């Protein structure tokens, strides 16, 4: 059985692409066959985060238009055998993705035996975002503990409940999960930032992961190595936990408390 997972948020810059890359890597490292698809037509970036930008020959729109086969367009990851990337097109024509075209690509991936298809949604609620979520079985809503991100996430939850194929056909609803990113336990502790529980209470859905604010996320995108592959990093461990939860394991949330630092470290920073 294949599962289609959309990674979405409404607001931009909250970590959708970072999350798509890490979740896809995490699933693939556990032996699943995974394809990760960039739906951000005109603003391709998943390829950079995955580190395969120089190997993009054909893209999503080329496949839909029949310029190439899906096999030709899928970029095989150099680190993990069972992981494939489909780059977004850099065309300025936002209408280039069609619902039927996307359906054909997804059907072919399913027929090809992929276990997971991860759809990296663009920001906003326009066509790309709509198509990224339309066929989803499951949604990971990426949210920062910050007012505009939380509000936008609620809009997205509304769309998941009404503007997806499952909603339109009256099938069982898309499974929704929250993934908090850029979480700062120190600022939560001092009352400056909303806590996981606050966000969960406002949005009313279950939390699949909390990724602590970490400099490793920027280093990872600089290097084109999904952060989950940096095993030293708190962010990687937090993503690894989220992948385990996605696969049905019960794993307690980590990195919600501030690490104890010495007096000198606190005074002089670091």
């Amino acid at each position, binding site marked *: 059985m294949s599962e289609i997972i959309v990674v979405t948020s409404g607001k931009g810059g909250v970590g959708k692409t970072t999350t798509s890359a890490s979740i896809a890597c995490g699933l693939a490292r556990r032996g699943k066959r995974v394809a990760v698809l960039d739906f951000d037509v005109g603003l391709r970036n998943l390829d950079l985060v995955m580190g395969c930008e120089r190997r993009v020959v054909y893209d999503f729109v080329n496949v839909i238009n029949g310029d190439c086969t899906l096999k030709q367009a899928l970029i095989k990851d150099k680190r993990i055998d069972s992981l494939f990337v489909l780059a977004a097109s850099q065309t300025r024509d936002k209408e280039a993705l069609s619902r039927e075209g996307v359906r054909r690509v997804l059907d072919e991936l399913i027929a090809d035996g992929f276990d997971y298809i991860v759809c990296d949604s663009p920001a906003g609620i326009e066509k790309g975002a709509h198509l990224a979520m339309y066929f989803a079985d499951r949604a990971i809503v990426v949210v920062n503990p910050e007012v505009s991100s939380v509000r936008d996430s*609620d809009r997205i939850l509304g769309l998941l409940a009404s503007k997806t194929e499952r909603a339109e056909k009256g099938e069982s609803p898309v499974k929704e999960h929250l993934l908090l990113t850029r979480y700062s336990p120190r600022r939560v502790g001092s009352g400056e930032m909303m806590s996981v529980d606050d966000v969960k209470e406002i949005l009313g859905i279950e939390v699949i992961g909390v990724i602590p604010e970490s400099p490793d996320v920027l280093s990872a995108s600089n290097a084109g190595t999904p952060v989950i592959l940096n095993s030293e990093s708190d962010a990687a461990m937090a993503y690894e936990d989220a992948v385990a939860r996605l696969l049905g394991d019960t794993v307690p949330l980590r990195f919600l408390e501030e690490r104890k630092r010495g007096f000198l470290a606190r*005074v002089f*920073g670091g």
Partner: protein
Amino acid sequence: MGLLAFFRRSPATASLAKERLRIIVAQERSTRDGPDYLPLLRRELLEVIRKYVNVDPEAIQINLEREDGHEVLELSVALPEKGAAE
């Protein structure tokens, strides 16, 4: 955290964020699946009511509830306490 920040704590604004979000999210959810005219209807009703009573813009709640087969439009206005409005 540097030396300055160590002595100057930021204000605890998270509870303010939560409260504001709780209200706006509840309001947006109540009109989410409703017809597009609901926000306009809410604004115009508010204008009419304010001709007579000086109510707070946030004191008006408009909800659309669906019960099997029919819809109920529920309007609630919190009137100001006596004397407070003048």
